[in-house]
């Protein structure tokens, strides 16, 4: 059984290798190869899962040691895997959703001549992500960590002919690198503290070192998590990442990769548990991002960017939960899984809508689409209900638990966090309802106008075949796209209940993360009820704004907050002014310094030597007699010298 773990990673890796090196001759079948291998990986995961269920809770963790990676004196890094309940959860999520999205992409990317490479990248992503969750030491995790970063870089910038896409990809990679810096520093700290960075030893002996060191490690890990999971202050890349093809947004920037940060924190639970300060920071980051993302989501007219904002805020929930410690870990992961389902579903839905609307992304140019694309409407709607936490759907279970846990944190911070979480729930309900209404209800704002809007000059190749500049003919997407949406919709409806009822998920995960029941100051029922109330409020408010009165095609100027939110709350402007401009000036001045100062010193020396020799040259007047004088004088000096020698 253990030996299957490697296959789990190997299958998609093989796919990536074949597809990327295969060349054009594979164009015809490339997408199928990719999908099949992803599915194979899923099957292997399922087999392992079944085997794992067969064992009792304590014996479920299995591992596989392939070979020693970097053997250096006092430094041992292995290529070795560890599969426990936590990893297994991710494996199933990744391979499952991954396979579905492969399937979806077959239809979505049908008309892109570089489809083969797209699937190669997708497989590469799967492999890296699996490596990330299966690694048994932080260094190997780091490999997967950067691997998914690379994959997302390649996929965001897949349409490289669009400068915006290339820029977004670069931005994503760079911001992630900042986070990675945190991870590598954390690993170094672990090495100097514990002499190793394998999960087992580090986490077991975490208690033996000072709290200060643990806090430092934890904060560095948190920095990494912020980078990968788009948490404040490193969240700025996620919005731009929507430049990538929609399946990518669904798989990487909604369901799986962006949740890696949560995985990292939960995986390092033993460290965080012993570093309360770090935990506090984590919860704060989560809370802030939660609101940040939600507010941004309210203002965006680009459907994908709105969803990106919501992703940000949902991950905020997870990080918040993870920061709460043992009372939150389980719910963080649970919300992560359910979110994986419904957010992926929402994105696929959005993709399907764009597919039918000539890749128009501006919701103000949608409207009344429900009768043109019923399947999309239904699946999207279910996802919508799930994410706002409609009672009975999966979002309800997971999010509600998190809010409870937040209150259970106790003390004022408990109240604050809980309040923020509730507020977040309300805003979520608001902006999701907004998306829903603007897209599927209201009058058909796309009539009698060309879609090629000025701010979107070049449209995705997938749409070039259909008259991109004519009036769109909304139509349902092909089956290869709808089936995944339907499956995900099922997940987003039932997963929560399946996990939540009888705390099934909790018992499954407890051996790894540990769990203790929090005791909220108010009864769980109260929390639940208030949650329902706020979401009704939020949804109602949205209905008033966007359901009752018509939606203007051109966005109104809006309030200061709205405008700020449209610009990601000015975070990008800050980056631009401080980092980009400053950096440019720094490099330019440094280039100047290098040329004038460092090089100038050298050249100056050379010049002075040249001038000196130029003067000395005049001594060589070419007259034999003056040379003779110097000779004679020299002889005299020599004699004087010898005489002095003898005298002394």
């Amino acid at each position: 059984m253990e030996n299957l773990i490697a296959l789990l990673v190997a299958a998609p890796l093989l796919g990536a290798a074949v597809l990327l090196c295969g060349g054009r001759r594979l164009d015809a079948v490339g997408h199928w190869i990719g999908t099949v291998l992803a599915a194979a990986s899923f099957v292997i995961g399922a087999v392992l899962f079944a085997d794992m269920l067969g064992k009792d809770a304590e014996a479920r963790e299995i591992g596989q040691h392939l070979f020693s990676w970097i053997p250096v004196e006092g430094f041992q890094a292995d290529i070795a895997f560890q599969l426990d309940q936590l990893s297994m959860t991710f494996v199933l999520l990744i391979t499952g959703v991954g396979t579905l999205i492969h399937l979806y992409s077959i239809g979505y990317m049908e008309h892109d001549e570089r489809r083969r490479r797209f699937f190669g990248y997708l497989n590469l992503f799967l492999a890296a992500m699996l490596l990330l969750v299966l690694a048994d030491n932080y260094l190997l995790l780091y490999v997967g960590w950067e691997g998914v970063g690379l994959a997302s870089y390649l996929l965001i910038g897949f349409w490289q002919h669009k400068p915006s896409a290339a820029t977004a990809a670069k931005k994503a990679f760079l911001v992630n690198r900042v986070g990675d810096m945190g991870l590598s520093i954390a690993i170094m700290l672990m090495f100097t503290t514990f002499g190793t960075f394998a999960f087992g030893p580090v986490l077991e002996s975490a208690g033996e070192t000072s709290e200060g060191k643990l806090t430092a490690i934890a904060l560095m890990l948190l920095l990494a998590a912020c980078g990968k999971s788009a948490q404040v202050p490193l969240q700025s890349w996620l919005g731009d990442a929507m430049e990538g093809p929609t399946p990518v947004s669904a798989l990487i920037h909604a369901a799986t990769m962006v949740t890696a940060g949560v995985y990292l924190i939960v995986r390092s639970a033993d460290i965080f548990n012993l570093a309360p300060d770090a935990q506090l920071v984590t919860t704060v980051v989560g809370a802030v991002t939660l609101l940040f993302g939600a507010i941004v989501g309210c203002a965006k007219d680009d459907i994908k960017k709105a969803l990106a904002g919501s992703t940000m805020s949902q991950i905020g929930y997870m990080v918040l939960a993870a920061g709460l410690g043992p009372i939150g870990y389980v719910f963080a992961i649970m919300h992560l899984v359910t979110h994986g389902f419904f957010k992926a579903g929402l994105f696929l839905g959005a993709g399907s809508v764009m597919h039918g609307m000539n890749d128009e992304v501006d919701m103000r140019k949608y409207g009344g689409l429900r009768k043109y694309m019923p399947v999309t409407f239904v699946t999207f709607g279910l996802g919508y209900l799930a994410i706002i936490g409609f009672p009975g759907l999966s979002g309800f279970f997971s999010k509600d638990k998190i809010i409870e846990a937040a209150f259970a944190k106790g003390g004022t911070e408990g109240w604050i966090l809980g309040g923020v979480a509730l507020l977040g729930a309300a805003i979520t309900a608001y902006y999701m309802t907004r998306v829903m209404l603007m897209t599927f209800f209201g009058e058909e704002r796309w009539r009698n106008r060309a879609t090629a809007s000025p701010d979107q000059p070049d449209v995705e190749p997938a749409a070039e075949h259909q008259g991109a500049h004519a009036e769109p003919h909304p139509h349902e997407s092909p089956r290869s796209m709808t089936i995944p949406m339907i499956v995900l919709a099922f997940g987003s409806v039932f997963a929560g209940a399946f996990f939540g009822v009888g705390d099934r998920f909790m018992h499954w995960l407890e051996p790894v993360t540990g769990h203790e029941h929090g005791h909220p100051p108010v009864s769980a029922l109260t929390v639940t009820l208030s949650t329902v109330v706020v979401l009704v409020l939020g949804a109602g408010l949205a209905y008033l704004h966007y359901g009752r009165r018509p939606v203007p095609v051109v966005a109104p100027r809006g309030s200061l907050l709205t405008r700020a939110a449209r610009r990601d709350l000015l975070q990008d402007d800050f980056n631009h002014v401080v980092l980009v401009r400053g950096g440019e000036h720094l490099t330019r001045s440094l280039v100047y310094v290098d040329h004038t100062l460092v090089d100038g010193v050298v050249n100056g020396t050379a010049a002075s030597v040249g001038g000196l020799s130029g003067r000395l040259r005049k001594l060589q007047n070419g007259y034999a007699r003056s040379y003779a004088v110097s000779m004679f004088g020299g002889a005299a000096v020599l004699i004087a010298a010898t005489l002095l020698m003898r005298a002394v």
Partner: protein
Amino acid sequence: MNPVNYLYLAALLFTIGATGVLIRRNAIVLFMCVELMLNACNLALVTFSRMHGNLDGQIIAFFVMVVAAAEVVVGLAIIVSLFRSRHSASVDDASLMKL
């Protein structure tokens, strides 16, 4: 009288010759001064041989003469060809060594 005076004489002649070399421009006179210097050396050598009571000094002096002869032959030949080419025996005219 102390034979050392011979050495003083030799030194004097040598110095005069050397100064001549530095002062005169006419290549021939230059050469003569060189010859003068060589002769001064010879005188010193002979004196030395007397001083040490062996003939090595004289032998060396003899060699000096031979070499001087050879040198003069070549040198004068050079002067002649120089004169042919530039119609002057002044060493300053042959100053192409500069730059």
